[in-house]
């Protein structure tokens, strides 16, 4: 009984952030596999992103963790408790997860105050008021308590939704593309604000997004999903510079792929010879090299064998398209402090540190 009381009294609850474990989880909808054999550990207090194109199963994964859908196979553990698995099913209201939906899903008939107070069970009126006001302060909207959701702007709604889901101190916070319906300016601001609020509270967070920039800039670690399977899990740096599959290389960051072949410990391609780093089985000879646009540099040289054929102005940087002697094109990104006109003859230099080789 004591245990139960403790569990239901949200006000007495300290942060009880936990790790999340998915063990071989699968889920199909009408015979279409949305998630297949997903195994993943998200550490306590970690900010983890699930990144992938639409339809890759990332939202389904989130819904499975939150208990909004049941997996066909596999088990999910939050903290020390198995929430779904062999014969176990903990309904969403007992899981201690917080969710922020893309459309916010604020209760339209309740004021901001009552929205936030909704999840605060077992608090005295005084505690309730104090707690709600604390949360409102935290998201920077202390004067909004008595407004209704329809009176708020998009950014304010997002902040209130965050406050509402944080109110019961969830073990895990699940964010389902929460920034996608905001303006670009506001989005950036809110992304970082949200991250710092969650970091400060030490709440384990899983963010679902299809925007690589968002995943890379916010997360401690990123999992890239494709067709319901995890392609790679790693730090943003690893995902960007050491993609483990062609898909990850393609989806994250801008890169060109060049045909090459292996000679001993060297990779040879039209751009030159590079030392081979990483293991490639002996029998493989034909390969593809991934070259990031920021690893390609060039200098203007009248006798150069490469021509600038396009320059796309991006603000601080310019993305150049360069025509190689063999008729293929490659991209290079450079600061926009100096503009190189289209038609210039140039010479290419490639930074070999980050070149990644895939078998063809």
């Amino acid at each position, binding site marked *: 009984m004591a245990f139960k009381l403790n569990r239901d009294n*949200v006000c007495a609850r300290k942060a009880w952030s936990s790790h999340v474990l998915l063990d071989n989880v699968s889920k199909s909808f009408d015979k279409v596999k949305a998630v297949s054999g997903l195994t993943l550990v998200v550490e306590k207090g970690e900010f983890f992103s699930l990144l992938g194109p639409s339809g890759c199963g990332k939202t389904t994964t989130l819904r499975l963790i*939150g*208990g*909004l859908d049941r997996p066909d196979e596999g088990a999910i553990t939050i903290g020390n408790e198995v929430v779904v698995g062999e014969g176990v099913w903990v*309904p*969403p*209201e*007992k*899981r201690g*997860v*917080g*969710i922020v*939906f893309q*459309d916010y*899903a*604020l*209760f*339209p*008939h309740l004021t901001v105050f009552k929205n936030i107070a*909704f*999840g605060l*069970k077992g608090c005295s009126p005084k505690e309730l008021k104090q707690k709600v006001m604390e949360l409102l302060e935290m998201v920077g909207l202390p004067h909004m308590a008595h407004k209704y959701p329809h009176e708020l702007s998009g950014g304010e709604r997002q902040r209130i939704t965050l406050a*509402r*889901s944080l*109110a*019961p101190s*969830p073990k895990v916070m699940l964010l389902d593309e929460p920034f996608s319906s905001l303006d670009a300016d506001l989005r950036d601001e809110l992304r970082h604000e949200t991250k710092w609020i969650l970091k400060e509270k030490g709440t384990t967070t899983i963010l679902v997004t299809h925007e690589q920039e968002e995943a890379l800039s916010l997360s401690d670690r990123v999992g890239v999903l494709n067709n319901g399977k995890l392609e790679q899990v790693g730090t943003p740096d690893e995902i960007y510079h050491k993609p483990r599959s062609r898909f990850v290389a393609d989806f994250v960051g801008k890169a060109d792929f060049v045909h090459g072949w292996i000679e001993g410990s060297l990779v040879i391609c039209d751009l030159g010879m590079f030392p081979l780093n990483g293991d490639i089985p002996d029998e493989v000879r034909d390969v593809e090299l991934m070259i990031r646009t920021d690893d390609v540099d060039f200098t203007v040289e009248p006798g150069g064998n490469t021509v600038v054929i396009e320059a796309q102005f991006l603000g601080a940087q310019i993305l150049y398209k360069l025509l190689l002697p063999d008729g293929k094109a490659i991209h290079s990104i450079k600061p926009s402090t100096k503009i190189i006109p289209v038609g210039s003859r140039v010479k290419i230099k490639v930074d070999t540190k980050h070149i990644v080789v895939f078998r063809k």
Partner: protein
Amino acid sequence: MDSTARIMRAVANLTRSWYLRCGHWLQGLPVSPLLIAAVVMLPVGVVSSALLTPTRQIWIHLWDTLLPEMLSNTFVLLPGVGVGTFLLGTGLAWLMVAYRFPGQTVLNWLLVLPMAVPTYVLGFVYMATFDFAGPVQSILRQWFGQNIWFPEIRSGGGAILVMVLVLYPYVYLLAKAGFYEQSGATFEEVRVLGYSRAESFFRIALPLARPSIVAGLTLAMMEALTDFATVRFFNFPTLSDGVIRIWHGMMDLRAASELSGLLVIFVLLIILFGRSLRGRSRYYQLGGKVLGIPPVNLRGWKRWFATSTCSLVVAVAFALPVMQLFHWALIEITRTPAEAISVYLGLTFNSLLLSVLAAGFATAIAMILANGVRLSEGRVARTAAHLATMGYAIPGAVIAVGILVPLSTLDHTINDLLQSWWGITIGLIFTGSVVGLTYAYVVRFMAVAYNSVESSLEKITPNITMAARTLGASPWKLLWRIHLPLVGPGMFVGASLVFVDVMKELPITVMLRPFGYDTLAVWVWQMAAESIWAGASLPALIIVIAGLLPVILLIGAATPKRSK
């Protein structure tokens, strides 16, 4: 009767084998929507099966007596009402949308008021006014002598006129919505291409509004098909009237149900007519978004012509008849002794009781249905919901017969069994009480309740439910704190619409009421049939006033806000 027993046995068998063989399947099936659809569709099924197993003698007899006249009258009435409501409704809607003239804002909603008057009420007022003994003809005879010619009001033309005046608002409202939703750019494009305003109307505005207009026409024609009282007043018996005559005159349930089957075919004809005219764009909506066609200020005599045309329609369809009712009602109240007034109190009580019962059940069932559809999110459940809301298209007389057949079988079976087991008679439990009536009302007006409930349920996105659950809400808290507050207003609107519809309803009430159980509507019909106008006026007035409630709600929902 045989076929009913067979159907019921088959249903029982099916249910049993379901439970035995695939009980676990039931979890996956949307049980409540399917069950509701089955209960609602039962009357239609009964009647249709009666038509599929025709009895020769019945049809020979019908053909020799009433049938040819009823058929030809129905075939005249439906197109007549269709054309009339189309011309009046669409014309007025275009006037409102495309032009500016004095008094427009007020006339805009005054033109919806005739909807509050049931056809049989306007019918008897017109009959009283324009009949041979009525004031109009009397005055004309005084002025021009005894042999003055006057068109016979008790005719098909009279019936059509009355129905058009009451039913045009369906077309008017929907056509207006259809015109409002159009993009002004398209309309102006056509003008730039060299067409006049009138030509643009026929080439662009009308075709684009066609789905809405046809939806309105379909509703108006279904109302015309269900009416039996007006056509009887005007000596123009149609199929609905025929069904009731057969039941009241001959107590022949078999003949009544076979003739009802024929009515179902007319319903299908109307639906087919709507489908074929609507074409592929089948959806329409009330309530406006972007206001399209830029209105033009009418000048000179035209502006006053527009104002007076609209005023005339309001006057003849609503204002004058209601004033006449007031006049009669005053006479009635002043000359009726106080104790006789209690008759009216009794009528009002009966009407209120039935309306509250039906509104409560219809709304509750609509809620269960909408919830079931929402939870299963499947094709099966949606189809079940479609079937369960079919009743609005089925004439009241058909529903009444379709309910009488199984319920009287049930009543007699129960009585026979009790008689043979214990030797007691308990009387007719279902057909002799308000149970059958309530059942029939729920079937007929389920769509009204369902649409209101469903549209407010849409406000609760699945994410709202899920957000509440992840915040730790128990199912009860979810229902009380989130779902009910959000759906409550919609349920209330749905319930009040059903309430008023039941108050006005006549064919079902006349056929299924327990013996001697009079309601306001029944009283109006009986008094008017005896040409006791003053006696009919007070209950009629109460019905009209109650009927104004949904009309006002409708005006709010269907009037797009005009930009200033």
